[in-house]
């Protein structure tokens, strides 16, 4: 990819507005190239597995800690409001709905945006400015397939698994708090947590996490792969990746929830 394409000298509206739409167009082309390369052999299976390890396994400790704390804190904050109505027995249901439908996908997505998105942006940015990507190209290796496709696939596969994991850890943290205060058994808690959740709601969360994973991978890769201006550019790629990913995750969350409510009003 020629990364030295020059800016147009004259602007249709202004430099920033033109740049914004040019950026959207570039991302769209980048996504189109991803789908083209992802379905064209040869496939980099080993590299995908390595990236799955980097994205999934190496994020486990952070996800465990944040999900566990979220479960406990959310339970503690919710109890007084329910206690006022004598409804603390509904605490597992409230926590179940909150964590599985909303908190697990969003918190996991945001944490991975910070950890994985910035890491991908910085790694590919550094490879770009040190000419490692050019070195791949001139040795007749397709760097897009090796670097971008593998990382985007790894994020798309692993974020949903991390969401499921963080959901269970969050519920476990909540259970410990509920058990300590209301002496609720694990079986009763789990029954209560899932009683108000149906299959399509769980699928909705998984679809959301799949889209979040793709977003994290593609934006991190795009910002890193198109880095310019040396080490300053690498820092900017990492930083801007996180900001854009977080912004997009909230927008996607809103759109998907609205869409799922539209096709299934009972949700």
């Amino acid at each position, binding site marked *: 990819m020629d990364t030295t394409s020059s800016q147009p000298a004259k602007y249709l509206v202004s430099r920033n507005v033109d740049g914004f739409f040019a950026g959207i167009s570039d991302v769209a082309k980048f996504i189109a190239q991803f789908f083209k390369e992802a379905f064209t052999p040869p496939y980099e299976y080993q590299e995908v597995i390595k990236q799955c390890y980097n994205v999934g396994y190496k994020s486990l400790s952070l996800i465990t800690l944040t999900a566990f704390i979220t479960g406990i804190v959310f339970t503690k904050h919710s109890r007084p409001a329910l206690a006022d109505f004598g409804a603390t027995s509904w605490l597992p249901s409230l926590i179940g709905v909150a964590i599985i439908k909303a908190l697990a996908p969003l918190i996991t997505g945001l944490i991975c945006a910070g950890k994985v998105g910035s890491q991908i942006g910085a790694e590919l940015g550094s490879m770009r400015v040190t000419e*490692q990507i050019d*070195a791949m190209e001139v*040795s007749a*290796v397709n760097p897009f397939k090796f670097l971008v496709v593998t990382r985007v696939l790894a994020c798309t596969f692993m974020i949903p698994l991390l969401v499921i994991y963080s959901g269970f850890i969050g519920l476990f943290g909540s259970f410990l708090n509920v058990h300590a205060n209301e002496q609720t058994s694990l079986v009763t808690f789990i029954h209560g947590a899932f009683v108000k959740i149906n299959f399509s709601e769980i699928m909705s969360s998984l679809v959301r996490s799949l889209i979040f994973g793709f977003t994290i991978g593609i934006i991190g890769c795009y910002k890193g792969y198109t880095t310019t201006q040396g080490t300053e550019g690498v820092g900017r790629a990492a930083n801007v990746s996180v900001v854009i990913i977080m912004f997009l995750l909230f927008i996607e969350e809103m759109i998907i929830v609205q869409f799922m409510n539209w096709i299934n009003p009972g949700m």
Partner: protein
Amino acid sequence: MRKHVSHNDNQEVVISITKLYKSFEENQVLRGIDLELYKGENLVVLGRSGTGKSVLIKIIVGLLKPDKGTVKVFDKEVDKLDKKELMQLRLKLGFLFQHSALYDSMTIRENLEFPLVRNKRNISRVELDESVSEVLEAVGLSDTINQLPSELSGGQQKRIGLARTLIMKPDIIFYDEPTAGLDPLTSGEINDLINEVQEKYKTSSIIITHDLTCAKDTGDRIFMMMNGKFVRHGDFEKVFDTSDETIRGFFDYNFIQ
């Protein structure tokens, strides 16, 4: 120092460049470059930093697109090739980057195997090991095979970069500032290595440099570039046999200071 070869009219032209122009925004970098590289010769492009030397070889290998002009490598116009044809052509080209561009997350073995594994999908483990050993021996760094690039010195990184280039057995090698940032002794070793590679593998090379010792030791023909144009060319003595103050200044700075 190797004996420099001179070319004759019957020699095969492997790279042919005609009226090449390239600019970045308002900055005109190349202003009508004409060049021919003959089979088996070392051609040095000499000039100050920022004169467009690296841009020239990046255009030849298809990393950058020219604004105007034609670049033919083995009679194929690089700018007109589709992605697959460009990949095929690049199998015949090697490129040693200024800062080596070794993959820093991979060991030296993985760096060397990387292009080979991806271009020869059915290669056996034994063939891989043989190829890696051969090129490491050629650059004199067999004992670094399990090290990471960050554990090597600048000169060693350059050698490994060259080994990674040689492993694909290229016909043409591009050297981008091969001695930049190295001490004089290590630079001399790199110059000797460039000559050894040319003699052993019968490659043709374009060497980009601002180091006159490198140009003198390795170049069969020298092209002096200034402001995006070639201002003089010929053998080393001919290029500097001039009263032009800028060119003389270049010579004096390298050899008198």
